[in-house]
């Protein structure tokens, strides 16, 4: 990634430069090459014209030595001229100096042509026509458009070698300059790119560490350079994340504690009857089942007393529910005072109570029930300045190991209670052994 960003930044800086430089370079070379050829052509034309003017009279006089001297002089005067020649109007060679790269084609008008590695320039030699001469009128119209009579041609061939060398030199120079320039550009842009990539590297590492959970990691101000504001932002973000996580943890602990307390309270509520503080039906049932198992396993006796307040409905109706509740609380306190520590009292619902008596046989249980009946009948409570007495009926059952369930055990005690009620209330009845 580091290399990727650097390369991209480099390309962003150098690629347009390469395109622009290339266009300029080729445009310049093309134009310059055209200028060079144009200059050489002008030079060739000038040489050929000069040769032509000088050759007029020797050509007329058929002075071969004179013509030869002229072409030799033309060659000596310019190193780039590799061959010079004079031709008659009929195209016959009158004098040749140097070597032509190829035999000249039929000569007609002025022309310049590039043959292989040479530039050939052909210039017609014309004699000036006399002006306003009625005697030359006919001759003029017959000859070439009033330009004067054609005497011959001057042909000059110039070497393009020097030109090509100039072109090559220019090309090499251009490429070298471009290369050096681009190298400098690359170095500069690498330096400039580093000012961006180095902070990015640093910030990337910090972000990665934060991502791994090191929320306390922070950027180094000295290394963030141009991206200082981004780094500050990332620091702030990490700090915020850390704070949020602490708060969250605290809140979770609080909620968990609350939940635990609620759970404990709920459990307590389920096992204790809120009004009387006695075991709830559920707690009593669990205890009773445990005791039934113990009794079965170890063969120890176990008894159960079912209790129901007499005429409780009448108390509720006559004195109101608060009084009913007060009676229930008083009744529970009375029972608690007369039972043993190991005995379990439970409120099974409404005015119905039960007492579990471990290690107690039927006879002892009846005695305990009788004690309870007397204590209840002897107790009283004041309601709005009025003494209120009440009584209860007791059904006693002794556990039999053939009994498979608590409900059967309870049902037998309940049946005994029913009999006590039926026999006139405020008494104790013992249940029969199971059939």
């Amino acid at each position, binding site marked *: 990634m580091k290399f990727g960003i650097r390369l991209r930044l480099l390309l962003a800086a150098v690629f347009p430069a390469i395109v622009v430089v290339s266009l300029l370079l080729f445009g310049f070379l093309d134009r310059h090459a055209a200028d060079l050829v144009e200059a050489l052509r002008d030079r060739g034309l000038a040489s050929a014209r000069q040769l032509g003017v000088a050759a007029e009279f020797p050509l007329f006089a058929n002075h071969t030595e004179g013509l030869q001297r002229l072409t030799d002089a033309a060659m000596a005067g310019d190193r780039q001229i590799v061959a010079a020649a004079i031709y008659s109007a009929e195209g016959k060679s009158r004098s040749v100096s140097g070597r032509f790269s190829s035999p000249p084609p039929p000569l007609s008008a002025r022309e310049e042509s590039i043959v292989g590695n040479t530039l050939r320039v052909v210039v017609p030699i014309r004699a000036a026509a006399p002006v306003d001469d009625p005697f030359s*009128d006919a001759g003029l119209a017959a000859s070439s458009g009033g330009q004067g009579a054609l005497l011959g041609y001057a042909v000059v061939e110039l070497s393009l070698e020097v030109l090509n060398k100039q072109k090559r030199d220019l090309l090499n120079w251009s490429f070298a300059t471009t290369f050096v320039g681009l190298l400098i550009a690359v170095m500069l842009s690498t330096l400039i790119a580093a000012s961006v990539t180095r902070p990015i590297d640093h910030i990337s590492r910090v972000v990665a560490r934060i991502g791994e959970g090191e929320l306390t990691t922070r950027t180094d101000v000295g290394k963030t350079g141009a991206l200082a504001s981004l780094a500050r932002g990332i620091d702030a973000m990490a700090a915020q994340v850390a704070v949020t996580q602490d708060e969250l943890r605290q809140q979770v602990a609080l909620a968990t504690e609350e939940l635990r307390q609620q759970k404990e309270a709920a459990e307590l509520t389920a096992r204790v009857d809120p009004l009387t503080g006695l075991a709830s039906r559920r707690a009593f049932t669990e205890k009773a089942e445990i005791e039934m198992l113990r009794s079965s396993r170890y063969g120890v006796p176990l008894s159960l007393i079912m209790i129901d307040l007499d005429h409780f409905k009448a108390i509720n109706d006559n004195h109101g529910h608060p009084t009913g509740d007060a009676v229930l609380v008083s009744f529970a306190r009375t029972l608690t005072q007369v039972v043993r520590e190991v005995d379990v009292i439970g409120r099974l619902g409404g005015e119905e109570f039960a007492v579990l008596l471990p290690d107690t046989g039927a006879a002892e249980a009846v005695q305990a029930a009788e004690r309870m009946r007397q204590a209840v009948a002897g107790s009283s409570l004041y309601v709005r300045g009025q003494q209120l007495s009440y009584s209860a009926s007791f059904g006693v059952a002794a556990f039999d190991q053939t009994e498979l369930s608590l409900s059967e055990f309870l049902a037998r005690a309940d049946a005994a209670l029913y009999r006590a009620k039926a026999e006139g209330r405020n008494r104790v009845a013992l249940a029969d052994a199971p059939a």
Partner: protein
Amino acid sequence: MSTEPSPFLRRPFSAWVFALVLWLPGVAAGEESLVWLALSDRGGIYGEAAAVLAGEMARDARRTELQTLPWQEFQPSPARLPELIVTLGAGAFRGMVERTRKEPALAGVPILAALLPQASYEAVAPKPPFATSAVFLDQPVERYLDLIRLAMPERRKIGILFGSDSSTLKPALVKAAGIRGMQLVMASVEEESKDIYPALRSVLAEADVLLALPDRQIFNAGTLQFILIASYNQKIPVVAFSEAYVKAGAALVLHTSPAQAALQAASALRSFLLNRTLPPPRRSTTFSVAFNNPVARSLGLIPGEPDQLAATLRRKEDAR
């Protein structure tokens, strides 16, 4: 410039009466004679000659409508065709001969050629029944010899190059030179040969003056400059036939000026309008003399005033 009396004025009275009779029907019909004046070129010597000719014709009592244009630009109208075409210059003559051959409307229109050398006329002029005539620029050969004798009496060896146009002049020249006690150094250039230099060299080796006679094979745009240079290098003056040669470097020239040629053409035109017949071709009757002063002086010639020389020459001819 010559002021020789026009042949027109020298006509006998009976001719005037005859001309009047011929002319009367035209006057009765209210028509002017239409004459085309066709030029080789719009300006230069042709324009100058045309102006002189037009001015001369305007002086006549008899009205002649003269349309002046370069020869290519005439548009013949079937309603009114020219009675005569006067051409100024060899090019105009050649062009108009061609047109009368090709354009039915112009067929049979007579042509009077002026301001052209005899050789150019003869090369193109059709055979009868085509009616053509001419006023040539060429001078009689005797006149050249007389001029040389007047202007440079000590030079008696006259060098002459003959080509196909000028070879016919040889007998007349030989005769005239004999009469005047002059020696001719002659060389002929073969008809097809373009290389005149060997002949020129042989002539310049012996002659002390070079007489140039109109000949397109020898004196043309391709040779003139070099003949003048070669002669000058040998200190031999060139006597030539066209004013243009003076500008090019000939020492002395005997020529017919455009105005002179125009006047001679005007005279022939008047003759045609009177007689409805073209006079026969004639050589120049009038002439001028011109020098190239620097060239003449450097060759040791002191010819005097050109006009004076021409006048002396004319007096000699008249006296003969």
